[in-house]
């Protein structure tokens, strides 16, 4: 299965094309997406932790759409990067650890999003300890996902 994936035309192009638009651009777009996903989450998280308290939390909700699109970019580029070295990457435990952190972080981000939809207009509940907890968990999980991703080059 992994050998087949790695041998597909798309995987071969990603891995072997000398074009700057193949592996280098796909990898760079993956880092751009990382910056947007984690960075936009950080804006929300730090606001929920009490930074810039005069920003109304619901006014940040367009950031969730930005996070979604950047995540789609990273799922697509991530799939290409995985396919290009499927046989080795599928054997790396740190890869599965990274996917787990991303799944948990996404779930957590969605809890914040749905909570903001429900409680947002009222404002007051957004300063509750529940949102502070979600914000800290978000910062920890996204940082852990970055760490695991970076370690894929070493472990």
């Amino acid at each position: 299965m992994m050998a087949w994936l790695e041998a597909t035309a798309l995987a071969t192009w990603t891995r072997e094309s000398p074009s700057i638009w193949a592996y280098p651009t796909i990898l760079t777009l993956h880092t751009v997406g990382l910056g947007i996903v984690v960075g936009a989450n950080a804006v929300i998280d730090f606001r929920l932790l009490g930074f810039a308290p005069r920003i109304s939390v619901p006014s940040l909700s367009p950031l969730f759409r930005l996070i979604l699109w950047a995540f789609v970019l990273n799922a697509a580029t991530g799939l290409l990067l995985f396919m290009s070295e499927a046989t080795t990457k599928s054997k790396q435990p740190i890869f599965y650890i990274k996917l787990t952190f991303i799944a948990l972080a996404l779930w957590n981000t969605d809890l914040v999003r749905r909570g903001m939809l429900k409680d947002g207009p009222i404002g007051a509940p957004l300063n509750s300890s529940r949102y502070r907890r979600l914000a800290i968990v978000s910062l920890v999980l996204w940082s852990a996902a970055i760490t695991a991703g970076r370690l894929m080059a070493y472990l």
Partner: protein
Amino acid sequence: MDAFVEWLRATPLSQAIVFRIWVWPLCETIHFIGLALIIGIAGFFDLRLMGFFKQVPIDDARELMPLAVIGFLLNLTTGVTFFIGHPEQYAHNPAWWWKIGFLLLAGINAFVFQFVVGKRTVGLRAGVDAPIAAKTIGAVSLISWFAVLYFGRMLPFLGGAF
């Protein structure tokens, strides 16, 4: 430049960075987290200047900026560590010089905002557009930081590093 690179590589600090195997991955990880802070926090402020998120008063968006400065300091520290560890990989690398160029542009741009244009955005309420000069500053900043990211990530491909 070559003499400087040779001298730097021979320093005990450079040797320590290269020969302790955990230093490089640790610095890379911190560099990526710092990157996300800069793109997210500074990018949010840039977008507000440009006319997005208009419900957020500009002064309030600006209150988050110290977090972007923290991200920048993390990346300056880890970036200098990379350079000390392997100066020969960067000193002759065109991608690295482009990166430094866009860092300088982002810095000059931020300086102009801080000391000249920023005064004109103080007190602008929610829903109010920033003046065109401030919009331009926002766009230049956003483009510069993504260019810094681009040339940093492309160091191995445009300049053949590592």
